[in-house]
C-alpha cells in the first residue's frame, strides 16, 4: 500500500457481473442519508440517487436483451465540475477524490451543468424524515440542507474511518479493507474499490491489465475518470439464434 498522500482511490465495475438488483442503490441511500425519494420525485424526474442502474434494451422479442450499468460520480482527474465552481466547494483532493464541501456550496449548480455523467444532485427542498425514521440516520454523514449540491463521495467517511483505524493500530491500510456501501452491498462482487496507485491492489490490477475488457465512459471528453468499467461478455455475440418463433399459442 502506498502512503496516504499518494493514494488515488478508484473503482472497477464489471458490467458482466451486474444483474441490476439495485442493492448498491439502496445501500448508498442508507449509508449517506440521501433524502427519501417519494412517488412525486419519480414522476417529476427529481430522484436523488448517488449511484443509479441504467438499463438498455437490445433487440425485440423473443431475441431481446437487457444490459445493466451502475453509474456514479466518476471522480475524474480532469473533472469538468471542479473549475466551474466559484467558491471551491468542489475540488480534487490528493487522494484522487472529487470532493464536495457542503458548507462552501452556494448552489450555483454550475458543477451539475458541467458534469457529463449527470451524477450531481441539487437539494431543491430541505430533506425531511419523520421523527422515528431519524433514528436510522448515519451520524457519520452530514445531512445536506436545501440549496446544496451533493454527489457520491466514494463513502469518504469509511475511507477516513479505515485510515484512522490503521494509523491507530500502527499498520498499513490493507487492500480491500475499505469498502464503500455500494461495493459492500453488491452480492455479485461486480464492484471493486481500492487504491489505483498501489500496483498490488485488486482494483489496480483490474484497471491496468492490457488484454482485457476495460473501458471508461465518454473517453472522448478526456475527463480521466477514476471509475473503470469492464465490458459485458456475450458468449452468443456472433451466434445467430434469432430464428423467430413460427407460432405462439396463447
Amino acid at each position: 500500500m502506498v502512503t496516504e498522500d499518494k493514494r488515488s482511490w478508484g473503482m472497477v465495475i464489471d458490467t458482466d457481473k451486474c444483474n441490476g438488483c439495485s442493492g448498491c442503490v439502496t445501500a448508498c441511500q442508507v449509508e449517506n442519508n440521501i433524502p427519501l425519494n417519494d412517488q412525486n420525485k419519480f414522476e417529476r424526474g427529481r430522484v436523488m440517487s448517488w449511484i443509479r442502474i441504467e438499463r438498455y434494451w437490445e433487440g425485440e422479442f423473443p431475441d431481446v436483451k437487457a444490459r445493466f450499468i451502475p453509474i456514479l460520480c466518476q471522480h475524474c482527474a480532469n473533472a469538468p465540475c471542479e473549475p466551474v465552481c466559484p467558491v471551491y466547494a468542489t475540488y480534487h483532493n490528493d487522494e484522487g477524490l472529487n470532493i464536495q464541501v457542503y458548507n462552501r456550496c452556494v448552489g450555483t449548480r454550475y458543477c451539475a451543468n458541467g458534469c457529463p455523467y449527470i451524477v450531481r444532485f441539487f437539494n431543491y427542498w430541505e430533506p425531511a424524515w419523520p421523527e422515528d425514521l431519524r433514528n436510522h440516520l448515519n451520524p457519520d454523514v452530514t445531512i445536506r440542507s436545501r440549496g446544496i449540491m451533493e454527489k457520491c463521495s466514494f463513502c469518504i467517511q469509511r475511507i477516513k474511518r479505515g485510515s484512522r483505524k490503521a494509523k491507530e493500530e500502527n499498520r498499513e491500510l490493507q487492500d480491500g479493507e475499505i469498502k464503500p456501501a455500494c461495493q459492500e452491498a453488491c452480492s455479485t462482487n461486480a464492484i471493486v474499490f481500492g487504491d489505483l496507485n498501489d500496483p498490488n491492489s485488486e482494483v489496480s490490477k483490474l484497471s491496468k491489465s492490457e488484454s482485457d475488457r476495460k473501458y471508461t465512459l465518454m473517453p472522448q471528453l478526456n475527463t480521466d475518470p477514476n471509475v473503470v468499467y469492464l465490458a459485458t461478455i456475450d458468449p452468443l455475440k456472433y451466434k445467430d439464434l434469432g430464428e423467430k418463433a413460427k407460432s405462439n399459442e396463447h
Partner: protein
Amino acid sequence: MKLNRREFLSLSGKSAAGAVIFAACSIPEKELIVQSPVDMPEDLVRGIDTWYATSWNEGASGDGILVRVLEGRVKKIKGNPDHPVNRGAARSNYDSAIQLHYNPDRLHDHKIRRSKKGILSNISKNDANKLISEATSKDKKIVVVTNPTRSTEGWVSEKFAESRGGRYLTYEALEESNLYEAIYDIFETNEIPHFDIGNADNVLSFGADWIENWISPAGYGDAFGKLRSGNRGFIAHVEPRFSLTAASSDLWVSPTPGKEAEIALSIANIIIKEKLVPDSQIKDFLNKFPEGKVEFGYDPNDVETRTGVSAKKIHEIAHRISKGNSIVIAGGSTSAYTNGKFNTYVAFSLNVLIGSIGKKGGVILNPEIKSDYIGGDAKPSSLKEWQEELAQWRAGYVDTVIIKGVDLAYSMPNSLDVRGALANVENVISFGNIMNETLDASDIIIPETTFFEEWGSEIPNPLPGYKTISLQQPVVVKEGPGASGAVSYVDKLIDLEPSIGSSNKSLVKKVFENEYTNSENTGSVIAKNKTSFMNGVQQRGGFWNINEIKDPKNIRLKNPFDYSDVNSFSETDSSYGEEFHLIPFTTTLMDGKLSNSPWAQQSADGITSAAWQTWVEINSNQAKELGIKEGDIIFLKSDSGEIKCLAYPHPAVQPGTLCVPTGQGTLKGGRYSSDRGSNVLKILSGKSDEESGAFAWASTKVSLKRAGGNEKFPKFEGNVEAFPAEPGVPVLVVAPGQTAHEAEEENHHKYQEILNFRKHHDEEHNDEEHND
C-alpha cells in the same frame, strides 16, 4: 497576481465574472490544500459502532447478516461474510427492515374489537392479556398460522397448537409447494438441494428467478458473481416473463406459459439422440419413461411449433448443458400452473440425464436436520389444504385463530374469501408491528417485536450442502426508540402455555447447547463449555458443520407422465376486453411485507425502473397495436376480481402475457403503503395443481380494458437525459476473448456504416423528390 481565500471570495462575490477570474488566476496549489480542508464534516464525527451477527428474518432463507448499532440504534445491515448461506452477500432489501423497526406507523398498543362489526380501539396490556387467555383456553379449538419457517418460532407454534388439540398451518402468497413435492419425488428428501451455481460451468433455470427473489437470492447472487468469474459460466433461463434472471442470462427462452416441460423434454430429446452424455446416464433418465416418448414425442421442431421457442435455441442449450459442470433448477412460475408439479419434476429430472447430482458445480443434496426446539416447515401449506381449512373457519368449527408473520387477508385471492372466513371465527388474534389487512380483520391485535429485538434460531432454506443453524439475537433493547409496548410472539405463547418452556431466549440457547453436546468438537464453533460455545455462536451468527452432509442416493426417476399434465387456465369475460395470461411476480416489497418501508418502495424495479405503484408490463409492439401507451390506466379483470394499473410497454414481454408486481394495493397499511397501487394477488384465480393441490398462481387469465386516462408513470428511467450514442455506449459488449478496444472499434465502424447508409438513403430520397 496573488490572492488569499478571503480576497478571492470577496472579489468573486462582487463580480459576476468571478468564475472566469478564478479560472484565469491559478491559485497556488498549496493554498488550495490548506484552504480546502480534507476534513469534511464526515471526518469530524466519530462514534463507536458495534456490529452484531444475527440473521435476516423477513424471508425464510436464514441469511446471515451483520447489523451496525450506534448509540443503541440500528444503522445499517450487511451480509455476514462468515455465514455459509450468503457468504457476505446482501439482498437489496435487507436495509428496508430497519425502516419497519423505526416506522412512524409502528404499533405500540394492544387493540381490541369488542364485536365483529365494531371498530378497533386501544386496550391496556393487562386487559388484553385476560381476553387472550380466555380466547386460548384449553377448551378452545385453535389454529395457529405463520409464514413458512423452520425455527424455534415454528416449534413453539406447533407445540402450542398441539397443546390445544389444534392445527398449525403456513401460508405464502406465491407458494411453491410443488417445488418441494417434485424434489421429494426425485431426491426423496424434504430439503431443497444446494445448487452449486458458483462452481458450475452452465446453469439452466426454469421459472426460478434466483437472481432477484427466488428462495435465497443473496446466496445465489454471490454464486452468480463466482460463475461470472474465471472461466465464466453460461446461463440459460426459461420463463415466459422477463425477470432479472432472464435479463442476466446469456440466453433467455420464453415459452408459452405452462409449456416449460416441453422445452425440458426437447432438450432431453437432443441429448439422447445425439448421445451427448454417457449411455448409463441416458439409461437412468429413461428408466421409467414410456418407451420412445422422449425420443419421438419432443423433436425440437415440433416443440418449436407448440411452445414458440426456436429449435436453434433448444439445440444450443442441450449442447451447452451436456458439457462441464452443469446444473438444472426449476421453480417460480414453472411450478405454479395446473401442471406445475409435472413441469418442475421434468425440469429437475434433467439433472439425472446430465449427471449433475452430488457433484461439484451440480446439485448437492442437503442433510435433513433434526434439532430439538426447532420446528415448523419450509414447505407452505397448499391451496387445497387452505381451502379445506377456510371451510372449517366458515362453518364456525374453529374458536380461535392466531396469526403471525403473514397477511392472509391481503395475500389470498378474492375467490377464497378469507375475510368472510375470519368473520366466522370467534377470536382472531394477530401479531404485527404495522397495520395490515389481517390485523384490520382481527379481534385482538398484539404489537409485535421486530427481529432486531428478538432471539431466534432457524434452519436456512436451502442449506449450503451441510448442517447449518442460523442464530438471531437481539441487537437493540425492546424498549428502545420506536419499540415501546412490543411483545415477543414466542414469549406470549409460552406465557399462555408454560409447559412449552421458560422463555424464547432459553429455548434458543437450548438449541445451541444441544449442538454443543452433539458436535463432538467439530464445526464452526469449538469451545470448552456451553457458555463459551454460545458466545462463539453469537459471534459467528450461527453454527454449521461441514462434515454433516448427505450422501446422494441412487436416484431412480419415476414416470412423470403419471402426473397430471393438464395445463388449464381460468375463464375470462370476452365482452370485457382482450384476453391475456397474467403472470404475477414479487419485487423488493415481497408479498407486501416491506411495503411500508420507503426504501423498499423507492427501490426502482430492475426492468421497468418503476417505483411506488402497480404497473402492468405489456409487449411494446402489442401495446402499439392496441393503442396503449406508457402510463395509460388499464383495468384487468379475472374470474376473481378486477384491478387498476398503469401500462408499461417494453420489448421483453411475451405477446399475449401481462406481468404485474405484487406488494402494493393494501386496503389497510401505513402511510407509505396505503392508497397506493393495486393488489394483483386478489385477482388470481383459485386454480390448483390437480396432482398436488398446490396454488396454480400462474394459471390465471385476465381481460384487459383501457380506462381512457393516462397518469405520469413513476419511474427512474428518464431522470437522466439520454444522449444519442454509438452502439455499445455506455454498456460495451464483447465476445469471449475480444477486448474492449476491439469491440469499440467494431461498434464504431458499424455506426459509421449506419450513418453512411442513412446519408446515402437521404440523398437518394432528396434526389427522388427533386426529380418529381
